[in-house]
């Protein structure tokens, strides 16, 4: 509980983080609707990108712990790496879910047309966990916070384009379309699409299933590293 609690405090203690955590989601609520694409207002499309940023912002705390050496103290303390990691992930997840709730129900409150808000929330939540898991796997590789963040920015850009969050997928050549399936962003896009045009409930759950597979995969990768 201690790790969870102080991870929350530290996440909110950083000014840049506050910007990522509060301002960007609020902006997302107010962005206009596009015609005929995307299915939901632009902000609800771009929120998928924001979540990727938020994920890495949060997870760099783990790099910070490594850089400032606190992990040394933790490694000799009577707690396990799993305990440490789950404390961090839980705190991040709480923040992410909170953001999703704000974006979805904030939108509903001001009358945005969101098709099926509850299912949208569920979709966002699962996707935000993927964003966290990828970030976790990412920071387990990097020693420096700045490099981790900078390189990840390019990765986010790449994933956002290729997943169809910025330009409609139909405009892509076939090869890229096939590659896109590998991107978690593609599955978010597919989910968003389903919320407006989808018919079979099963299609929605397939999207959810894939997102959870991604989460499990990346959390597993990210948890291999030792604490110190």
């Amino acid at each position, binding site marked *: *509980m*201690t*790790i969870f*609690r*102080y991870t929350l*405090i*530290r996440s909110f*203690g*950083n000014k840049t983080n506050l910007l990522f955590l509060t301002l960007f989601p609020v902006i997302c609520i107010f962005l206009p609707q596009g015609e005929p694409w995307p299915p939901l207002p632009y902000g609800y499309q771009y929120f998928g990108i924001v979540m990727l940023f938020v994920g890495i912002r949060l997870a760099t705390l783990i790099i910070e712990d490594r850089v*400032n*050496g*606190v992990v*040394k*103290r*933790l*490694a*000799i*303390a*009577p*707690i396990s790496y799993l305990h440490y990691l789950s404390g961090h992930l839980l705190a991040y997840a709480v923040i992410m879910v909170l953001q999703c709730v704000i974006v979805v129900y904030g939108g509903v409150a001001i009358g945005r047309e969101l098709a099926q808000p509850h299912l949208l929330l569920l979709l966002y939540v699962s996707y935000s966990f993927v964003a966290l898991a990828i970030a976790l796997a990412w920071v387990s590789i990097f020693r420096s916070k700045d490099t981790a963040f900078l390189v990840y920015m390019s990765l986010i850009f790449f994933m956002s384009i290729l997943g169809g969050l910025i330009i409609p997928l139909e405009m892509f050549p076939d090869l890229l379309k096939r590659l896109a399936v590998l991107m978690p962003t593609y599955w978010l896009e597919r989910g968003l699409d389903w919320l407006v045009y989808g018919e079979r409930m099963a299609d929605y759950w397939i999207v959810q299933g894939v997102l959870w597979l991604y989460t499990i995969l990346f959390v597993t990768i990210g948890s291999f590293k030792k604490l*110190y």
Partner: protein
Amino acid sequence: MTIASMRGVVKRYGSYVALDCIDFDIYEGEIIGLLGPNGAGKTTLIHALTGLTPVDHGTVSLFGQAKQPFSRQNKERLGLVTQDITIFDELTAKQNLLFFAGVYGLKGKEKQERVKEALDFVGLGDKGDKNPAKFSGGMKRRLNIACALTHRPKLLIMDEPTVGIDPQSRNHILEAVKKLRDNGTTILYTSHYMEEVQAIASRVIIMDQGQMIKEGTVEQLIETIQSEEKVRIDVTEPYLVPVNQLEAIAGVKQVAVAGNQISVISAAGSGNLDRILTIVKERTGVVGIQADKPNLEDVFFTLTGKQLRDRGERE
């Protein structure tokens, strides 16, 4: 009772041998000093002893357990003051302590009390709500020490805890360390400051290039290098000093007069200073005395051929 020990511990980094067959015991209730020049392997030894670094050979045992020295139960009884400052800059001093206290499973009122106790202990009682980012180097150091205290470890390992702390705070901390010992904490203390170790440690290990080159009480170590004591006395009228009378004292080896100063060399431990002074004072006025007792620094220098710390590095 032995609290911790190493037997034949070897640690290599590639082909470099950072710890070369280390053997020692730490006994309950003592302050044991660990001395060595830069790169001697002190931190590596500490990391091996706390389980931060796996060793290539040999055994480490903590609290009598060699099979599982780093069990959860043992970890609860172990405290480490790291050589680097390892605290959260974005949390206040108090939050830092609350965090580490919480990690060690302390709760509620007890946790609050221990945190306050630790803050007072290092003299940061009124700085609890400040962020260490705004602390001076010395204050950060002190917080770094406090972070290892809230869970009241039975064995406290301090890796150069006083680097960069002003002399006044250093004395405060040395007193605090002695108090910890008096309360039953066993302490392994590493420092670049000889005087510190000489002042608080009951036993000393000297390391160089990954090897333990000497171990013993401060007195024992000093004895090994020196069999003589030298006294220099500044007097007002040196021609009045009865040189042959001084030479007749048992144990005195040599008496020399140079200018206004007489030097007397006698066997170590003969306790001749008093006798020499009495004789000199009968004839002439004494304006100054220097008794050159060899100290740990001399031991160190004799053994390693190195100063523990470059002069420029000293403060």
